[in-house]
């Protein structure tokens, strides 16, 4: 019995040895390192959906999908006028045609209205052109007034199927617009789709509205309004429009920031004589002062894990970004490059912060890798501020200027493409990207 086992072990070792010898005799294979990509924009062809019985909507849903994907900076959609054919079923797809056009992915589909329910029914397919395979086939149904949402869902599904990352095209944006109406400034707090469409005004005021911040469930907004002549923090339910004043302390009431669990809120108050950062328990409105410094401490933002915060302080003489561990309340300075670094926001994975960085006379959006301290400048215009990261961490919206107007721009967090939200508003500022919500 033992001898047999020994024999087996020996045999095994011999086999192992011969394998290792074989492995040694094998030539070292050439290994080429690829660290750069041609572009982060993947070529994709989204063929206008066919409407076999002519009951399709007037609006081209696929253009919404194209815009979404283009906005992400991760895709570059093919102009339909350049397409060699317009297939709407898998059997009509000739991969070679799409390959000739340099496309990697192809979306085709059909849309028609149900005869009885009056809903729109969409069936679409996603193909991998180089590997010549179907990746996704989906059936969606929606009401006539929700076609845009359906288009964003398609964008999300396609984005996820190809990139593996959840799409953020069904999320929303909050921002403040400023218009001159009859010689008076009119501020509007608005909420829209990520492409700026379907905007909805939550609050209209002749006084400034600042710093909108989404609740983690994406159902409420906290913001600062000067409507009373003094800054106060409000919380408003988006669906119902109902709102409540959270704070109107003496002095500053600014920069509200929901905790990841939605139970607490960070804010800047100067009720104690100096601008300090406080944490409020939203259930009982109890305040905890987090900073104790003669300098200005403001613009706090929660880390996704809820254990740390970042904020801006001029305790070094100029605005710089600090990070604080909430248990120890120890703050350490994060930014050292340049005289001005402010308005920090965590990435959803907590590995980066995005902030406004001044380099010379220009204010730009920068990114810092928190583990390495490496800073990357993402924008190259001259007056950029208020960065806000999409919940999937892939896109960033910020405020920039075109001429005398401020506009919103979306870029890939890798600093790739740039997408301007339609400039149908006068001045747009203070963008906030919603979470995925529930």
């Amino acid at each position, binding site marked *: 019995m033992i001898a047999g086992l020994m024999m087996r072990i020996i045999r095994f070792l011999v086999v192992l040895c011969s394998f290792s010898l074989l492995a040694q005799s094998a030539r070292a294979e050439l290994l080429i390192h690829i660290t750069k990509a041609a572009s982060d924009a993947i*070529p994709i062809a989204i063929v206008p959906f066919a409407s076999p019985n002519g009951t399709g909507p007037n609006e081209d849903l696929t253009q919404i999908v194209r815009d979404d994907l283009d906005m992400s900076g991760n895709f570059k959609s093919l102009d339909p006028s350049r397409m060699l054919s317009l297939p709407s079923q898998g059997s009509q797809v000739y991969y070679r045609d799409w390959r000739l056009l340099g496309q990697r992915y192809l979306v085709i589909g059909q849309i028609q209205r149900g005869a009885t329910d009056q809903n729109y029914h969409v069936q679409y397919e996603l193909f991998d052109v180089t590997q010549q395979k179907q990746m996704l086939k989906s059936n969606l149904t929606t009401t006539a007034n929700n076609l845009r949402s359906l288009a964003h869902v398609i964008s999300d599904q396609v984005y996820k199927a190809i990139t593996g990352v959840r799409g953020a095209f069904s999320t929303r944006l909050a921002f403040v617009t400023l218009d001159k109406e009859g010689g008076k400034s009119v501020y509007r707090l608005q909420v829209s789709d990520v492409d700026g469409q379907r905007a909805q005004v939550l609050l209209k005021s002749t006084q400034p509205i600042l710093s909108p911040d989404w609740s983690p469930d994406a159902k409420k907004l906290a913001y600062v309004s000067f409507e009373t002549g003094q800054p106060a923090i409000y919380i408003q339910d988006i669906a119902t429009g109902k709102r409540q004043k959270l704070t109107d302390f003496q002095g500053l009431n600014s920069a509200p920031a929901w905790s990841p669990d939605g139970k607490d809120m960070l804010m800047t108050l100067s009720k104690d004589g100096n601008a300090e950062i406080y944490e409020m328990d939203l259930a009982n409105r109890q305040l905890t002062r987090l900073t104790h410094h003669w300098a200005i401490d403001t613009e706090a933002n929660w880390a996704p894990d809820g254990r740390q915060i970042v904020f801006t302080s001029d305790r070094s003489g100029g605005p710089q970004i600090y990070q604080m561990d909430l248990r120890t309340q120890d703050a350490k300075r994060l930014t050292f490059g340049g005289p001005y670094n402010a308005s920090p926001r965590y990435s959803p994975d907590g590995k980066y912060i995005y902030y406004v960085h001044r380099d010379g006379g220009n204010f730009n959006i920068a990114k810092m890798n928190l583990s390495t301290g490496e800073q990357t400048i993402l924008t190259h215009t001259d007056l950029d501020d208020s960065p806000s990261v999409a919940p999937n961490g892939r896109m960033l919206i910020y405020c920039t200027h075109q001429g005398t107007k401020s506009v919103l721009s979306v870029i890939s967090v890798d600093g790739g493409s740039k997408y301007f939200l339609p400039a149908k508003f006068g001045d747009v500022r203070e963008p906030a990207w919603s979470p995925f919500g529930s």
Partner: protein
Amino acid sequence: MGVADNLRDPVKQESKPRAWKSLGLSVGLHVILLGLFFVGWHWTTPTPEKEPNFITARLVQEQRLPTAPHPVKQEAQAATPPAPKAKPKPEPKKPPEPTPQQKALAEKKAAEEAARQKAIALQQAKEKKAEEEKRKQDAERKKREEAKRKAEAAEKQRLAEARKKKEEEEKRQEEAKRKEQEQRLQNLVQQAQEAQKKRQAEEALKAEQERQRAAAAKAQQARALTERDKYILLIKQRVTDHWFRPPSTDSNLSTVVTIRLLPTGELISATIKDSSGNAAFDNSVLSAIRSISRFPVPDDPTVFNEYFRQLSFQFSPQGSPQ
């Protein structure tokens, strides 16, 4: 063996001419004897009827005799000599005739004288003939003896010569053998020397060839390396141009893909060897590889087989050490 043959051969070859010589000698001897017999017969038989003309005839005979017993060549002549005997005959009939008495007396006297003379002549002839015969026989014997002696001497000489020849031959052969051995030895030495020289030359040549081969291999390797490096760059550029990196929240992703190529640069297969764990990232890698219709590869089959028949790529969004 060869030497023995050589030794024997000359003897063999000589025995033939010797036999022919003795046969010729004996035939010649017999012919001479036969000729003598005929001559002798002429001497004896025709004389009784003939006149005293014999003197002239005899003179003729005498002149001929010494020559008669000579070699085989004269055989034909020996048959003809009797012919001149007939010619002198008419001459004795011509002398002038005397008076009858005188004539008678004279005739008688003459007859007596003639008879006497004849008897004397006959006697003389007889004696002479006997003497001649004896002399002839002596000569014959002598000749035979002489011939025998000569033959013996010749044989002796021949034997001696043969022996001498044989000895010489042996000596020569021995000498040749010795020389041959010497030559062989010398040859062996020379051969050994030559072999050594040749070996050394070959070794030198081999070393030179080896050196050249090594140099060529080195050059080839250098060339292959530069070719390899050149095509690595080309391939890298091509792959980079075709890679659309998907958005990723993790910058530490890394995928290793192994591909196999045809010598034309066409893709046979692409397989993920080390997955990043991110399907989209892996997929972007495969998509990049498969979207390249033709990879740039070297024409040199050695370089191709060495490096490009199968190769791997490591895709990572962040720069990694090259």
